[in-house]
């Protein structure tokens, strides 16, 4: 039964991920006074891409064929760590916070390799920028996770979330700093607005788009899907820690609450994207250092 629920969580997670992206995009356009595509547009995009013919550069090595799948797999392994709407996760017996962060690192690594593999100038540029941002965001993410793991006396990632829920809202107020830091990190890792603009292909500034510029058809579909999953992973971490789910025996209620929660937590993303412009690339280290400061403040304030 536990395994069934685990698989069900994974399926729900992957199924909901494109809708969250669609929701953020739609909300952003609505707030600007435009109509915007419907929430199910990302699903349509993925199905459209799957039907198209795939073209791979003749200079591409086997990396170009395996990298998209490995990126997606790494993220799916991470999904298996975190409880979505129930405490029975597929990989609850293993995986501590460090593994969690480095599996993220693995997906970023293969993404960067893919960018460089096809020999286009933009790919290498995008990879270089992505690795810069990822390496600066990692210590912050680690600091946030260590805060939680010390607080709940466990380094097992699933166990942290379960203990958060069992402690029933009794969270220290210093977590507000951790939440803010986590927000910065998720914006950086998901290539969203202060760090990168996900909507444009402006050659001077693109980061994420530059890496997948050469991808087509099913490979592009996989990349798109993994970027949706990555975004939802961060939203799920934030929402599960700062707004713990109800532990009711009614599974349907849990699922509904989870979906409500992730849509609630994706609202700030669209509001921030609406209100500020993309930062200059050389300002990004400052921004990430500020998020590191926030993480350290959250950490120090609770353990001093």
């Amino acid at each position: 039964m536990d395994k069934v629920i685990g698989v069900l969580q994974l399926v729900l997670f992957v199924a909901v991920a494109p809708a969250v992206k669609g929701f953020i995009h739609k909300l952003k356009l609505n707030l600007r006074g435009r109509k915007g595509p419907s929430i199910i547009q990302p699903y349509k995009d993925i199905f459209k891409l799957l039907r198209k013919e795939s073209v791979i550069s003749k200079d591409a090595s086997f990396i170009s064929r395996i990298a998209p799948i490995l990126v997606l797999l790494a993220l799916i392994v991470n999904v298996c760590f975190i409880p979505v709407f129930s405490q029975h996760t597929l990989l609850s017996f293993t995986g501590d916070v460090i593994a969690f962060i480095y599996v993220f690192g693995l997906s970023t690594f293969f993404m960067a390799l893919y960018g460089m593999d096809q020999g286009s100038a933009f790919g290498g540029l995008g990879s270089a920028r992505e690795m810069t941002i990822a390496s600066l965001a990692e210590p912050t993410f680690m600091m946030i996770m260590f805060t939680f793991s010390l607080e709940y006396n466990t380094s097992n990632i699933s166990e942290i979330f379960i203990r958060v829920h069992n402690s029933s809202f009794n969270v220290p107020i210093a977590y507000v700093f951790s939440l803010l830091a986590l927000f910065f990190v998720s914006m950086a890792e998901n290539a969203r607005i202060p760090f990168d603009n996900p909507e444009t292909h402006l050659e001077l500034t693109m980061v994420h788009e530059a890496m997948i510029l050469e991808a087509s058809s099913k490979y592009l579909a996989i990349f798109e899907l993994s970027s949706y999953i990555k975004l939802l992973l961060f939203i799920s971490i934030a929402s599960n820690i700062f707004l713990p789910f109800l532990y009711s025996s009614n599974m349907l209620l849990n699922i509904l609450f989870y979906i409500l929660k992730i849509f609630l937590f994706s609202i700030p993303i669209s509001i921030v994207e609406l209100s500020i412009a993309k930062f200059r690339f050389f300002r990004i280290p400052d921004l990430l250092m500020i998020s590191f400061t926030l993480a350290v403040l959250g950490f120090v304030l609770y353990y001093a």
Partner: protein
Amino acid sequence: MNLNISLSEFVEFMAALSLFFAILQTASHRLDFAIKTYTFQSLALSITMFLSVFYYFDYELILSAVLTLLIKAILIPNVMKKITEKIVEDESVKPFINFTYSILICVFIVIFSFYAMSNTFYSVSSSSMMQKILAIAVAIIFVGIFLMFARKKALIQVIGFLTLENGIILGATSTVKGLPLIVEVGVFFDVFVGAIMAGILIFHIKDTFDSLDTSKLSDLKE
């Protein structure tokens, strides 16, 4: 579901927010942003002081909280803004130590002051909340000092001094339940006059050297 946020935790949070805004000042590239951050920092400080009233039941603190709000969050930022509008043509903050390093150094300052304060006699006699706020106050003082020597522009050095002063007030609130009223009013007056004097001095620096860059003060004039 019981929302278990106690008053002392909230006071701590506001004090830490004040510290965060102090650190944000070292990351600001422009003078107007630094002034805005100073406003928020003072606002967080005055909320901290106001909430400490309910912790200590010492009603003189209300007066200091209101004075902080009026003088530090409204009056001084406006004076500073006027000065920037009048004389500053180039709003950039010229750093001696660049912004990323500044923030990292501030992180170390925070860790150091929490470490240093964990061994004081307060850890025995006083409650842990006040010990944390004392550590935060010391961190704000250090960040203010750091801001004073890490930036070239005279105006941001003044902001650094005001930050330091905020730290001292916070430390006084946390350890001895605020200074005596007469001292407190004196300090506020001192700070306000100090800010105005610094403004006049900045006018003179600008007049004599055609720049607010303090590293040019040692240039020879004919």
